[in-house]
């Protein structure tokens, strides 16, 4: 079914099931994203793709990667409210993942060169968007890693935060990671190659020792 609506005053035509982000990208309108990857279902975590949805005098911000297109809506991708969110998110990211070149570059593209917040861990790259775990679950079909813990402590990890024998070392997580963090974390998930075959032996032995 065809759906007509406006993005930045340009009339676009979409079909049922498309999201605002997909439609915008299809028409060559750029919206920044970090946690979005085509191979998995969108999760709306990074909030960089926020756009303003206007209806008369009333407006709200929505995450374009998960907002389904609707007939007659009006979307603006670059308003003051949108860029306020974007700027702050970039500043947060710069303070949380200072080591990620990709984030620095993206932030610079949107005019954010520095952050007002203190940097706690200068080596961190991970922003816990969960793409790696979604790929592992949806694409690889294994679920070797997942997002663990919650709130500020949220992080990516294999069960019990040690190498897991579920991991087949396919590296899909490394490939989708938008910040390059998974590259350094990968070895902690797959473990030493020489140990991989005997992972189970190791695991049982360790359990006997630690319990």
């Amino acid at each position, binding site marked *: 079914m065809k759906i007509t609506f406006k993005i930045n005053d340009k009339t676009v035509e979409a079909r049922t099931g498309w999201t605002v982000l997909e439609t915008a990208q299809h028409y060559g309108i750029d919206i920044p994203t970090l946690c979005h990857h085509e191979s998995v279902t*969108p*999760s*709306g*975590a*990074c*909030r960089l793709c*926020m756009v303003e949805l206007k209806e008369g005098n009333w407006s709200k*911000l*929505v*995450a374009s990667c*998960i*907002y*389904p297109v609707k007939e007659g809506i009006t979307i603006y991708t670059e308003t003051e*409210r949108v860029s*306020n*969110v974007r*700027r*702050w*998110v970039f500043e*947060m*990211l710069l*303070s*949380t993942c200072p080591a990620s070149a990709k984030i620095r570059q993206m932030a610079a593209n949107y005019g954010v060169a520095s952050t*007002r*917040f*203190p940097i706690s861990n200068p080596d961190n790259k991970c*922003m*816990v968007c*969960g793409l790696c775990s979604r790929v592992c679950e949806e694409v690889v079909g294994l679920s070797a890693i997942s*997002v663990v*813990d*919650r*709130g*500020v*402590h*949220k992080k990516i990890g294999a069960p019990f935060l040690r190498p897991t024998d579920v991991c087949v070392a396919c590296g899909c997580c490394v490939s989708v990671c938008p910040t390059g963090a998974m590259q350094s974390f990968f070895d902690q998930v797959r473990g030493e190659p020489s140990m991989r075959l005997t992972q189970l032996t190791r695991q049982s032995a360790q359990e006997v020792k630690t319990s």
Partner: protein
Amino acid sequence: MPDLNTATAIDLNQWHLKSEQDLIELQKRIIESTDPNRPEIVVCHGTGCLANASDKVSEALKAGLAKAGINAKVMPGIKKTGCQGFCSRGPLVLIRPQGLFYQQVKARDADEIIEKTLMRGEIVKRLLYKDPKTKKAIATEQEIPFYKLQKRVVLKNIGKIDPTDILDTISSGGYQALAKALTSMTPEQVVAEVEKSGLRGRGGAGFPAGRKWRSALTAIKKKGRPVYVVVNGDEGDPGAFMDRTIMEGDPHSVLEGLIIGAYALGAQNGYLYVRAEYPLAIKHLEKAMEQARCLGLLGENILNTGFSFDARINRGAGAFVCGESTALFTSIEGKPGNPRPKYVRSVEEGLWGRPTVLNNVETWANVPLIIRKGANWYSGLGVSNSTGTKVFSLVGKVNNVGLVEVPMGVPVSRIVEEIGGGVPGGAPFKAVQTGGPSGGCIPYSLKETPVDFDSLTKAGSMMGSGAMIVMDDSDCVVDVGRYFLRFLEEESCGKCLPCRLGLSRMREVLDRFSQGKGSEKEIDDLINLSQAIVDGALCALGSSAPNPVLTTIRYFKDEYLAHVQDQKCPAGVCKDLITYRIDEEKCTGCTACSKQCPSNCISGEKKKIHVIDASSCIKCGICKESCKFGAVLTV
């Protein structure tokens, strides 16, 4: 039917109710079988009273009665009820039929109560409540201002009935609304009645319950069944315990509301999601469901009307965010309670992607009242946009701590100053925090603000689940802001960046303020950042999280400025901006403080004035807490 007069313990299985008539018959028999003049001792077994050993009081009373050898005919019954509301005065004991109200009863008072009140009909004066202003003792519950000024509708039965006995509920009219709905109303009429009543969700946002049910009906037409009804009993707001009290004290009212809702929507399965921190509520609900099943009020073919419905209790596992509807659904599905990133309403796509109606405990408990007494009666309570009554938990720096039910629209001052008896010491309150971590502060200057959904939102706060935390001059707004942010950064699911990172960053800024660092500009930055979080967050937890800070900046900017510009904490709370000192005039040299001091920085001999060595003081505040004479000051 079995003879109720002789059966003390009624076998519920013999009472499988087959019609509305059976229910009324049962009620009649229960009432007939009880002697209205038989004395009854009602002991509050709410959590507050239990913590003050009310279970020991009831045991002592029981033992005392056995010892006293009272004639079996007039042997008083002991009834263990849910929370009676006046928690700061617990343990509470009510003597019927006189309606005597004893407060702060200890186990050792049991014999005296039996001897004087029950055997001789005298009043134990020292156990009565004394009005702090007039210093007059008040004998009965109805005369105490705390109760007198309330309008108890939802809480009506709580504190009167034994929550573990369904017969007690039935004798006070329980399940009649259900019977009415099932036998004389169509589902459509039920929904229309709820719509007409103007009932708004008591969980926080105040979405009209009737409209929610209506859109669920529309969604069902589109998507078909199954449809689910869910009770949100994940009362996470710190300081709120009204849902707990309802579930513990009158579990059947929630269950009845839920079954009515299920009937209206044609649901066959329901879920009660209850916080794990409320084991007693879970126990009582489980028992209530079991008894309701026995009586044929839950399960297959309810009241022989052909309508079947059953429910299951899901224990929460300790996550505030699971109070958010979609997070609650993912939690019921057995996953981490991350809110769903979807722009679809839960009435269309809720639990397992099916149409789902989720209301909180208090909302469900209102439903039977509306059905039984009619929408017109209900909308007559409260004000036009916010009908009915609302239960508040009044806590913090207030004399009468407890549960308060008032019609919507009464001013804040009425609740805090008249019912709550004001701040201890008589000073005016500084602010009232409503709506928990998602709400804001109402300053003293706005004390006439009517308490209803719209007025509170206008004042920058929100109704929330109904926690009212009274603050006085010794509470620092920066500290309160930090407290809520710390709470939320731990409780945020951590999925979206603005919430996970933004709240930490905000808290870090406030941390700096509390150390006297920062500038006025940073306060503006904070407001800006708050706006970004409000706009950017994925779920309601994040988008309302900056509220406590925003409202305190709005009403108490001076205090913020005092921190960042003068490096002073006017309330004397922020550790880095205060020092502890001993008031030489008040110090009696009792050594209580120096004994407790963990860093041994208080010196002074017995009966001599003590001195705090500021250089090694770690500002733990134990000295201030342990001083009985108020001699430890913060400067």
